[in-house]
């Protein structure tokens, strides 16, 4: 292998790694605040890419209908729960309508805009809006009542959500894959490698998201409130931080990151309804390598996974997955021994 090939592989690995990093960040985010190991994170990616593909062809994506159904279910649940809790039907109704409002607006706009075939960036924005609105609804419907459950139960609930979302994906988008047009078609020569505009966007978005997340959690009050919920739920609630709102906000961010990732990989990868799982899994691997707690660690872990994957595919493409997943083991061992045993974890 000469240096040209090595640098191309390196670039390829870093590009995939950047996307895995985003998913790893989302996984760490969701886990630290809600203790949910969110397996369906990859589905947000697939939905994002495929929703855009549907909009590109002028059809109303099935995700819009799902959004409406989910919003209705969530608002009914909200209505029932608030009424039971406060005994006040008016407040309950208000709360239910609040849940319904944004999804309804997004859905209506999408249905109107779909046949109009607006410019690429408008459709991209719309796709992101649709998928992002999913996040808090998924939390409300599937996870909110289980806030006190063990991580194992939450994990299995995630499995159920994953099945449902994958099945719905097959229903809406069919079994065949889609590609989206590239956002930036230019090419740049960087020594032996050619950087496409899309690759530049991927790196740019990933880095900015990481910086934004860091700023949010370090500097903003809401971000600190989220971190507080992660550390001690009861304590956070005593301080007036709503764990429901924290959970929903977290899922919103996870869905946003997922949707953006879908847009990023759409042009270079054929996205199928079931592409999300393996991508999400690799993001999860990156997150765990970082101990499910550190954002820079998740980034490094993801880049590592991407690079190992690229070089592994070059050396023995049939055994690519074996190489990636076997190499994880010694790293996990080292990390685990280094981080020590925490008695309070179970």
């Amino acid at each position: 292998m000469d240096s040209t090939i090595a640098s191309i592989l390196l670039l390829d690995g870093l590009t995939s790694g950047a996307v895995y990093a985003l998913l790893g960040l989302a996984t760490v985010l969701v886990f630290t605040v809600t203790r949910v190991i969110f397996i369906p994170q990859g589905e947000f990616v697939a939905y994002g890419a495929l929703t855009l593909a549907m909009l590109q062809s002028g059809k109303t994506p099935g995700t819009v209908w799902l959004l409406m159904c989910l919003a209705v279910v969530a608002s009914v649940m909200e209505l029932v729960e608030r009424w039971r809790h406060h005994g006040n039907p008016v407040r309950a109704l208000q709360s239910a309508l609040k849940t319904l409002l944004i999804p309804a607006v997004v859905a209506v706009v999408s249905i109107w805009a779909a046949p109009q075939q607006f410019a690429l960036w408008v459709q991209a924005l719309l796709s992101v809006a649709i998928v992002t609105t999913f996040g808090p609804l998924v939390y409300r419907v599937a996870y909110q009542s289980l806030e006190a459950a063990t991580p194992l139960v939450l994990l299995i609930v995630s499995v159920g959500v994953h099945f449902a979302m994958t099945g719905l994906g097959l229903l809406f988008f069919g079994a065949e894959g889609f590609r989206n047009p590239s956002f930036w078609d230019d090419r740049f020569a960087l020594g032996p490698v050619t950087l496409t505009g899309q690759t530049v966007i991927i790196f740019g978005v990933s880095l900015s998201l990481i910086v934004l997340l860091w700023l949010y959690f370090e500097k903003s009050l809401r971000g600190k409130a989220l971190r507080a919920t992660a550390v001690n739920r009861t304590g956070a609630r005593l301080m007036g931080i709503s764990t429901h709102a924290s959970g929903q906000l977290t899922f919103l961010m996870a869905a946003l990151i997922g949707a953006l990732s879908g847009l990023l990989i759409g042009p270079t990868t054929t996205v199928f309804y079931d592409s999300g799982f393996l991508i999400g899994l690799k993001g999860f691997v990156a997150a765990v390598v970082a101990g499910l707690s550190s954002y820079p660690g998740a980034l490094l872990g993801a880049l590592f996974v991407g690079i190992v994957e690229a070089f592994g595919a070059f050396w023995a493409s049939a055994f690519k997955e074996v190489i990636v997943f076997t190499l994880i083991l010694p790293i996990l061992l080292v990390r685990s021994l280094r981080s020590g045993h925490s008695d309070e974890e179970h």
Partner: protein
Amino acid sequence: MKLKKTLLALAVTVSASTAALADIKIGVSLALTGPGSGLGIPMQNQLKLFPQTIGGEKVQLIVLDDATDPGKGAANARRFVTEDKVDVIIGSCITAVAAAMTDIAAEASTVQLAGSPVGVPAGKDKWMFRLPQSNTVIGYAMVEHMKKQGVKTLGFLGYTDAYGEQWLKEVAPLLDKAGIKLVATERFARTDTSVTPQALKLVAANPDAMLVVASGSGAAMPQLGLVERGFKGKIYQTHAAATMDLIRVGGKGVEGTFVSAGPVIAPDQLPDSHPSKKMAQDFVNKYDKVYGAGSHNQFAGHAYDAQVALEKAVPMALKKAKPGTVEFRTALRDSLETMGRTNFAHGIMNWTKDDHWGYTMDTAVMLKVVDGKFKVE
């Protein structure tokens, strides 16, 4: 469109469920979910157009999803033979699943029309008939084309699953005989985010031509990856990629690709003397009318052929026994073996007692992607 499909499906199911005892029961197991759904769903679509009666008897189709899982396929087969007591089984579109069903069907003396070119140990396919051409038959046309084009070296980029594996196994002896050397073999997965590493390695080996073994839209990314890496030679695709999805996703990047497939892909371009032209056109017209222009593909064609086979063999078997009996099923098998040369949409089928594959070596058609459409070479 979706509403129409659902109504149609409902109609078929409702009519099928008001069946009487002397019905012909057909158990269908297909991959409707999971990685193989790209093959199973088109077949299911075609089966929704299955006639209501054959040979004067009502037909009841029971369609179950095997989710690309051999275990589920075996369970479906078991249900068909013990619970539903079907007269014939169609399935599966995935070789591993079909293989898991073969023993169960054979033990219950039930004919299995397999929707995939499944290989089983010798002698085990007494009751199993394959609807598709074997990869060897399809590969033969391709290799002949390569020979004519002067291809001396070949690179292989295929799915890392049973389909990719089988193609490699079956095309290797053909290449050997034709004197074409396989200089590089790489594998990839349908849901991979990038094939750059594999493409790099293949392009570095600098073969005259590349063979991509993938299905449907999944066949686009590997080809685009090769082109991206600067490959300028000929690219060949297999019959599973002979769908509009390849062109839709691949766009300009797949122009000029050579695809070897059955006659059903572009029947209008076949010479009138081609024995399958009429059947293929009938299939294409009927399928595209319901599901959209250009939506027909290889797999739906096999489901159509299942219908053709049964429409010929069932009346022959009905003369000997009544549906629902082991005599009927045995008679059905005998009919399939003795009905002789039959015009399928996919070519001339000639199942005999010893040969349950049936297609001859000249069945496949070479196509080329020109202006976003398939053109017969």
